[in-house]
């Protein structure tokens, strides 16, 4: 065997070659460009003449000026991720444990909405949440609107164009990203473990808490990252479902880039956002325990 190692030594590198090249061309190079842009200065608003000169002032007051939108993005994305987890976990669990031979079909149903454009799905919510629509009328009758008002999450007698609608839209749009990884990790669990728990006199709850939940943590971790990260940078939901005070950081970047033609500023905000998200993910990974992730 040792005689053949030499010939095979290169194989792994050749195999990862395409992946590395892909990342290099479509991730590292753009990332570098973004970084250079974020340290450039434009002489004129209208001319496109960014010149690189270590201009840290682009980063200057991002937190001061756009702190509100930044904080809001994390809050909205965080609440949406939690909601996705609360809605998605039982779904994935039920399909994995009780789905039987319909498992594939059931999990396929989760993906079906993806056949429609992201934009259309979001805009459809403006119809569902319309002021005289069924949802608003039901929420009014059941006191949900009053409850939301008491929390200060809405002001008037409506859901559309409020932060609640934005978080709802994020939750709806990113739910499959939570369900699929959860399903994958739950499906891998040997169902006989539950029987074993029962044999050892564990209650249903403690079996879940001590066996199923820890084994599904990689799914929770992957699912919440896949939900939280894109939700933080999303601007479509805030654009269509939000009101006058629910814009997110994605909307700010769009405005800096396309309306104010401040490409360096937009790049700086994007870069900072990336750093903050990376830091948050590292902390999160540490809390959940990285070993769980690789198991």
């Amino acid at each position, binding site marked *: 065997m040792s005689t053949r190692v030499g010939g095979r030594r290169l194989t792994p590198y050749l195999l990862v070659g395409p992946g590395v090249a892909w990342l290099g061309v479509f991730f590292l190079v753009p990332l570098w460009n973004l970084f250079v842009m974020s340290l450039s200065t434009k002489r004129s*608003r209208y001319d496109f003449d960014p010149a690189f000169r270590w201009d840290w002032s682009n980063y200057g007051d991002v937190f001061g000026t756009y702190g509100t939108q930044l904080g809001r993005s994390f809050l909205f994305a965080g609440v949406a991720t939690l909601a996705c987890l609360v809605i998605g976990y039982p779904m994935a669990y039920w399909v994995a444990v009780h789905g039987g031979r319909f498992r594939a079909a059931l999990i396929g149903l989760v993906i079906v909405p993806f056949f429609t454009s992201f934009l259309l799905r979001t805009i459809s919510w403006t119809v569902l949440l*319309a002021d005289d629509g069924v949802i608003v009328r039901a929420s009014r009758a059941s006191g949900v609107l009053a409850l939301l008002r008491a929390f200060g999450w809405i002001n008037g007698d409506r859901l559309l*164009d409020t932060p609640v609608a934005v978080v709802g839209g994020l939750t709806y749009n990113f739910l499959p990203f939570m369900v699929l990884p959860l399903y994958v990790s739950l499906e891998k669990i040997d169902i006989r473990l539950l029987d074993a728990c029962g044999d050892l006199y564990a209650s249903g709850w403690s079996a879940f808490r001590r066996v199923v939940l820890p084994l599904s943590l990689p799914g929770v971790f992957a699912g919440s990252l896949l939900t939280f990260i894109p939700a933080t940078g999303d*601007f479509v939901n805030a654009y269509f479902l939000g009101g006058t005070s629910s814009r997110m950081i994605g909307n700010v970047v*769009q405005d800096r880039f396309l309306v*104010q*033609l401040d490409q360096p500023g937009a790049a700086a905000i994007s870069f900072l956002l990336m750093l903050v998200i990376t830091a948050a993910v590292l902390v999160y990974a540490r809390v959940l325990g990285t070993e769980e992730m690789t198991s």
Partner: protein
Amino acid sequence: MSLQTSRRRFLGGLAAVAAGGVFAPSLLTACGNDDVGGRRLRVATWPIYIDVEPEGEATLDLFERATGIRVDWNEDINDNLEYFAKIQPTLSAGKAIRSDIIMPTFWMVPRLADLGWLEPLPLDAIPNAKNLLPGLQRPTWDPEGRWSLPWQTGTTGIAYNRKATGGKEIRSIDDLFHPDLAGKVGFLTEMRDTLGLLMLADGKNPQTASVADAERAIERLRKAKADGQIRKFTGNDYQDELAKGSFAACVAWSGDVAQLALENPDLAYVVPEEGGMKWADAMVIPKGTTDLDAVAKFMDFVYDPTNAARITAAVQYISPVQGVREALRAAGGDGAALADSTALFPDAATEKRLYTFRSLSEDEESRLSEAFSKLTGS
């Protein structure tokens, strides 16, 4: 009447996505079908902005038959600022974009001209340019009439939904600030339209107003927003909000509402007592065009009243070409009814109340746009 959907109506939903993928369309057009021989004219314009029926007899077909020049009609423009952001790197580097005629909104014209990104019009080769309506000759945005010929024009006023206003008719801009409409009022993110109307409400003329006047308008909006009077700042998607009744009243564009009202009689459009805004999308020639003769031939063709009337019948905006009304009557059929429409041909009294936002210097634009963005984007 084939195409009832106006271009602005078509945009609403698209704006946001398009913004996400700014560079995609330019890539697509970059690998367009240039391989076919013959002379070609490349036009970048807004969606649904010309007649396409009947096949083989539409304006572009007739133009090709008359001149042998084939037109690549690219619906590349979804939003002025977004389009500017798209062409900026190329023109700024002194290279030619892949269009011979582009159609930005009027206020973009002086900006492009000042940057040196435009070719002057070959007016000698466009005899029909004499058909330009007198009111649009030498406009504030192009005082020498050197750079631009309007493609279509329209007005900005107030639209309202009688069902949502409780049967109340809206007449003035101040009505938008009435407590009865709290939380049911919309304003446009298009800065010049929104601020123009508010300055008119303040007794200022947007054609001559100062930056301080505009800032006062922004301040009034900020207060209204804090009070919960304003529900949302929107782009073209205001039409859905209006039709659904989410907006009882909002700043709106004339052509859109005329068409919406056909389906929903509760909707109405009014040029407010204090006045309304007037806008135009203008044909300009980006620097680097190789076939100026083809450009001139096209402009001359669409400034012929018969051709202009055919376009008007399809897109239903206010035509900048003199003689369109007569040509519509002469053509008969559905078009003849349009000749009597006050939306397409505003009367003299309305015309008097229409203003055009004045040109802003780079500094003024920067100051106002930043303040306005802070208001609409928080």
